[in-house]
């Protein structure tokens, strides 16, 4: 990796191009659309979605929002996991993308939480869940989710802020004046002597975050579904590992995409092809793991499984979107392996497309996972007597869930104007 010059890294903070203005306008316009859709939903209630009552009502109570929530939680892992790995396992190759990854984690967690809020019938009462936490923690898987996600968010934000301090202190004079109050806040009580201690704190935080990864995407999130016996598609011994692999894969794909965008937009060639090749290798093998777990799900579901499991599996295989997802993941994966084996076929734009296919495929798969389980409930005879349901997300719903992606982009764009997006060693600040 070529060392980034301080000048290069600080450029986005100092200069704003007309291109950035265009990007912001597009994002803000869509955000306006999103706000309007959300306003409609808040005003009229969830009746404006495609969701409905499970049971004789023939509807699906959870859909796009919950699927998107699960996807965002997954994305949140990649970022901080890469950054933590850089710190704990000294994977210096990824130094240049650690900060981008950290910011991605914080934003992804906020978007995950936002999708839960979109899904609530009474978002104004969100804090009831916190108020009741001391007792619901004993029995509600949703309370576990809230707890672990909050913990993860607190750790990630702390990690991000701590890792910024010495750097901001060294760079302060060269950063825009109107941001000084923000930096004063981040640097509250800063003494240069703290650097060593903060480094140790960061190391331990990294360990804690790495430990939380399997507990979140491979734990409380799949448990949210797997513990509810009424839906056969949600239960499976491999559900936790499956979801963890999907999460890590879509997260690394997202890191790849975001990093490529930064390199392209700011011409940051110091993030060299080696970094992307490294990510591509990780993503290729994670995608392979995703497909392997998919096989674990499908084959036992087809071969002499209990009737209801068979039905779910068949329904899944009959859904065209499922194949879109599976083929997307496979095409992306095959391209990445091609690039790994024959580097002359590897180029960043094509790998970005592969990443989009993979993470998009996983998003689709997650939404189908939520919906399919609900469409094919277990327990005959009762469920045989329900009308067979269907679910098509409404335009409002799509706008809101898609809005989380746009808002994430918007937050990223704003972040580039607030903090350096590449970690700079305070000792090596050059003129």
């Amino acid at each position, binding site marked *: 990796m070529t060392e980034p010059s301080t000048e290069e890294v600080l450029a986005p903070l100092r200069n704003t191009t007309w291109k950035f203005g265009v990007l912001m306008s597009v994002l803000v316009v869509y955000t306006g659309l999103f706000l309007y859709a959300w306003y409609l939903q808040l*005003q*009229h*209630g*969830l*009746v*404006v979605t495609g*969701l*409905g*009552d*499970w*049971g*004789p*009502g*023939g*509807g699906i*109570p*959870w859909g796009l929002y919950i699927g998107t929530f699960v996807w965002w939680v997954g994305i949140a892992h990649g970022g901080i996991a890469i950054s933590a790995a850089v710190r704990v396992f000294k994977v210096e190759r990824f130094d240049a993308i650690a900060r981008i990854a950290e910011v991605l984690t914080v934003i992804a967690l906020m978007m995950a939480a936002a999708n*839960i809020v979109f*899904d*609530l*019938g*009474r978002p104004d*009462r*969100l804090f*009831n*869940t916190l*108020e*009741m936490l001391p*007792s*619901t923690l*004993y*029995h*509600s*898987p*949703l*309370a*576990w989710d*809230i707890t672990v996600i909050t913990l993860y968010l607190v750790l990630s934000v702390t990690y991000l802020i701590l890792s910024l301090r010495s750097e901001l202190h060294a760079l302060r004079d060269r950063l825009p004046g109107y941001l000084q109050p923000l930096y004063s806040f981040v640097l509250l009580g800063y003494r240069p002597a703290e650097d060593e201690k903060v480094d140790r704190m960061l190391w331990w935080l990294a360990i804690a975050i790495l430990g939380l990864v399997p507990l979140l995407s491979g734990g409380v999130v799949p*448990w949210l579904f*797997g*513990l*509810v*016996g*009424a*839906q056969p598609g949600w*239960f499976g011994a491999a559900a936790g590992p499956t979801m963890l692999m999907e999460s890590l894969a879509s997260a690394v794909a997202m890191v790849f995409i975001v990093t490529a965008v930064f390199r392209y937009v700011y011409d940051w060639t110091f993030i060299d092809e080696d970094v992307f090749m490294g990510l591509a290798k990780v993503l290729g093998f994670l995608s392979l793991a995703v497909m392997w777990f998919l096989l674990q799900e499908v084959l036992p579901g087809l071969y002499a499984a209990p009737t209801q499991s068979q039905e779910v599996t068949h329904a899944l295989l009959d859904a065209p979107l499922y194949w879109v997802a599976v083929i997307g993941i496979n095409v992306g994966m095959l391209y990445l392996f091609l690039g790994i084996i024959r580097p002359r076929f590897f180029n960043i734009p094509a790998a970005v497309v592969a990443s989009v296919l993979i993470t998009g495929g996983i998003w689709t798969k997650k939404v189908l996972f939520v919906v399919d389980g609900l469409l094919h*409930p*277990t*327990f*005959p*005879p*009762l*469920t*045989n*007597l*329900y*009308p067979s*349901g*269907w679910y098509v997300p*409404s335009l409002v719903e799509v706008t809101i869930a898609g809005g989380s992606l746009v808002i994430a982009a918007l937050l990223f764009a704003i972040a580039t104007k607030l903090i350096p997006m590449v970690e700079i060693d305070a000792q090596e600040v050059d003129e």
Partner: protein
Amino acid sequence: MDGTDSTIGGPGPGDPDWEAWADAVLEGTDFDPELGKAMARDAVRVNEGDLARSTFYDRYHEVVQDEFGVDRRPADDLVEPSETGDDHDSTDAPLPHVPDTGATDEEPENRTRRTVLKTMAGTAAAAAALPGCLSADGPGSAFVGDSEDAIAASQTSEDPSDVQLGMVIDLERCHGALDCMEACKRENNTAVGVHWNYVFRYAEDGEGKADRYMPRPCQHCSRPTCTYVCPTEARHKRESDGIVLTDYDQCVGCRYCQVSCPYGVNFFGWGEPSDPDGFDYAREDKNGDRVAGNPPGGVMGKCTFCVQRQDSGDPNLEGTTACAEACPWNTISFGNLNDPEDDPQQHLKEKEGSHTFHLLESVGNDPSIIYVGFEPSINAESGESTATTFDELGFVDYRREVLDDRTPKRKVGNETETDSHD
């Protein structure tokens, strides 16, 4: 028990020779023969179900202590197996599980905490134990184990504080008139397409016509999955009478209860209620929680066992529900399942020879609705009723269709007003 297989090997108390035999046996002891004989007679009555164990225990507790200095009869024998609990195998539970509404908990009525306190019974292993409790991956696999006694106690003890309101629904009497559904809608002012008491109309294999009926209110389970998963404890099981309710002021509308209920009894407030003022009773129950009638927008609703009637203080309304009252065939008997004098048990007594079942027994939620008749087979198919149809009553069977209008509903007609039945 025929009395002859008594442990000491003599004739049973029903036998004419028994008195003399008993006197001879008891003469050789220093203890009161009359007490021994009286207890033996009553013990047989206990075995035959004519006498409650708790009564038996209380009746002799003092004399036994006077006579023997100690009453060794195990107090936990007071618990009798529930009518339906016996088929749970309590010996080989595959997973630890959480004792639920244990009768041992001394907590006063505390709405929000009760489920938890009872559920957890102070165990630190709660989190570890819970998966076993919520998963229902196989018939009966989840809800077997050590709390059978507690459950049984909550269901059958005659201590009046152990009330579990419930229903006996007699499928042999149901004619598919749908009067119960209509009465429920009128009483609770539920929205279009919402049927808290839903009558399944179905045909068995090859019969073609849907001439079988099964009303399905909320099962008010003793192990309600919906209360376990609720992140705010808005969904709770009331301590004093076992009604499962939703606190409309606490619910955040996440619908976790809906996806976790195997019976599909929940109906969400997708929009604002079509008729906000159509509920004629008090909304608050005796604990001061807003739980009665149709839910406001964004909040979950379901059958409340007409809690507004149970808490009304009006003896004509207490112990009744709209659906039970409306049925011309006396299909539904509502009351305290634990009281042998109350309607449900009287109904069961009357139909002693008939088959009874719990709906989806294998999921282990331990419902408080006992059906008389036969459960629909796995081949059952729903179809157009041969009795009253939904169309005749202006009911919407498939709420999805109503919601698909997507027009925010102010007043999309009131099903109870299109009544053409009475």
